[in-house]
């Protein structure tokens, strides 16, 4: 990949005034080189995924003995890998159907909670006048830089031991087991998402026209009413942008789930199971390939269908600063 850079350099460097015939030929060559280089990059970026995808449909003995590219000369197709990895019940198979449901159960509330809380907070920070508003905003904004690693150990002990200060129990332990542990994961994801969510939504909400807000105030609308009837409909694109962000982040997360969801098929999401399979059964490629695709397909669909919002959110979140 890095070797593509010199190709471009030699290609474009040679350009002079495009007035002579030679120069014109050179210019065309340049655009050829550029096209070629971009095609090479595009290939490097797609072939690995493509290879995995093809492999996931090949019979086990084929995957393990021949390269996936031989599929084109000797095509053999099976759905058994998916069947096995999703619904197989032996401990060595994936049982991914279970984990798939876990992923859903973890992700949906972990998107909704920060979305709602951050929208409320962002509205207050943008349109309600109160003392210390700027300081609250700066504090929340600054929390974006705290790595979530800083919170993991104490948060886990908070869930399992509660909070005691000088012998007085301030908050009891959560004492969750089984599917209830989802609540821990929701809580953790919500907390970690809030600073960025408030920042992103504040960017949008604060740019709504002031006249609109003032007109509504003059008409006697209260803040909750303005929030519900004016602001929410107008910031739907921003909500979608953050929703997709958070969805991809939570669905693809490994660290938070590993710590707060535990490892079993009762609560752990797909990523945890896949990482485990990759570690303990690194050569069972028939399971890994199919399993990887099971985990990829949902975010990929969300991403491709809502790419527009995602890109908009990305730009608003990163460039406007």
């Amino acid at each position, binding site marked *: *990949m890095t070797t*593509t850079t010199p190709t471009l350099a030699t290609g*474009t460097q040679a350009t002079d005034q*495009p*007035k002579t015939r030679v120069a014109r030929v050179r210019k065309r060559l340049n655009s050829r080189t550029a096209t070629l*280089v*971009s095609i090479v*990059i*595009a290939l490097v970026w797609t*072939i*690995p*995924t493509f290879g*995995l995808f093809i*492999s996931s449909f090949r019979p086990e003995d084929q995957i393990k*003995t*021949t*390269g996936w590219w031989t599929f084109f000369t000797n095509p053999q197709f099976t759905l058994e890998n998916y069947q096995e990895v999703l*619904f197989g019940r032996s401990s060595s198979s994936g049982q991914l*159907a*279970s984990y798939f*449901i876990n992923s*859903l159960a973890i992700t949906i*509330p972990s998107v909704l909670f920060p979305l709602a*809380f*951050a929208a409320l907070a962002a509205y207050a920070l943008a349109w309600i*006048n*109160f003392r210390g508003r700027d300081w*609250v905003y700066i504090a929340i904004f600054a929390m974006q*830089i705290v*790595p979530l*690693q*800083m*919170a993991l*150990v*104490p948060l886990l002990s908070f869930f399992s031991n509660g909070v005691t200060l000088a012998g007085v129990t301030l908050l009891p332990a959560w004492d969750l087991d089984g*599917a*209830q542990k*989802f609540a821990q994961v929701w*809580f*953790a994801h919500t*907390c970690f998402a809030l600073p960025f969510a408030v920042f992103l939504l504040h960017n949008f909400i604060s740019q709504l026209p002031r006249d609109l807000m003032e007109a509504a105030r003059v008409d006697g609308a*209260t*803040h909750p*009413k303005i929030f*519900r009837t004016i602001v929410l409909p107008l910031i739907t694109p921003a909500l979608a942008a953050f929703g997709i962000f958070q969805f991809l982040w939570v669905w693809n*997360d*490994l660290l938070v789930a*590993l*710590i707060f969801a535990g490892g079993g098929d009762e609560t752990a999401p797909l990523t945890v199971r*896949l990482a485990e399979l*990759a*570690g303990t059964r690194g050569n069972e*490629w028939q399971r890994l390939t199919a399993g*990887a695709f099971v*985990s990829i397909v949902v*975010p*990929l669909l969300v*991403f*491709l269908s809502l790419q527009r919002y995602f890109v908009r959110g990305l730009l608003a979140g990163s*460039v406007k600063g």
Partner: protein
Amino acid sequence: MNFDFADESPKLMMLLWGLVAFVAVVGGLLLLLDVVPSWFARRREAQLIAASASGAPLPRRTKPREGLFALFFLLPTVLLLIVGLVVPAIRTTLLSFMDGNSQNWVGLDNYVWMFTENSIVRVLLNTLVWVLLVPLVATAIGLLYAVMVDRARFEALAKSLIFMPMAISFVGASIIWKFVYAYRGDEQEQIGLLNQIVVSLGGEPKQWLLDSPLNTLLLIVIMVWIQAGFAMVVLSAAIKAIPADIVEAARLDGVSPWQMFWQITLPSIRPALIVVVVTLSIATLKVFDIVRTSTNGNYDTSVIANEMYNQAFRYGQNGQGSALAVFLFVLVIPIVIYQIRNLRQQREG
């Protein structure tokens, strides 16, 4: 083949509870904010009517309670941030000065350990390599690609291809690339693409992920593969935002594409470039999933976030784990300060 749906029902119940809680909390809050003020308004109305009927002096008009509204709008966010982020971060900082069980104060021991223990020094060096390479290479490739596909015929499709890995989890991406790096003995047919290429060029197949320091570079490839799309999208938007008349004027002056790139494009997108590099640096500092899935930190590939997880959650060394987390935080700070300074200059300039 006996996937039992009954086993899944507690999870779905829990999900339902979560959704009910969501509706109750958010709806309840909005309802509260709606009902209470209008109750006050009605009471005041009644007071006014009573006052005017009895001829008593009108009660003074109270100022609308803006602050109270703000408090309730902000309450969930602020509470969660304090409980879930601020207090834990402070506690982590304290724990980093305590021993593994968080019982006794040990001063700076954990930090001394971090910089003297050979395996941890190795971890820090690896992280340094990651942070130097990933932002640089990913940004370079993203920029190169953004410039080249700009206004090309299949621009949207071409961009989607590079961008797609952003939707794939780090775990999924690691499996994809592990498959590329897969190894089969000399006498067997290769199943990994990389070894196949090496073999067909007449080389010997290698166990890529076992071989330090090459393995760290190969893991870095995975991160670059995921993040180049992000760089490309942001930079592409910046390139499109360059005023058309500047580009046109340069073109009329007969500027070559090469000069155009260095003298027009690059200076114009500098702010976006900085944002991309900063964002990628921070993301790279925290990289965890790739290392854990690909090598589990073995063969000299571990990085800070992975080591932090191991110390705190596998070996039960809360102190050492916390010290690593704090160090990670300390590393992020100068990057952020640099960005804030840049933003301020931009606004003034």
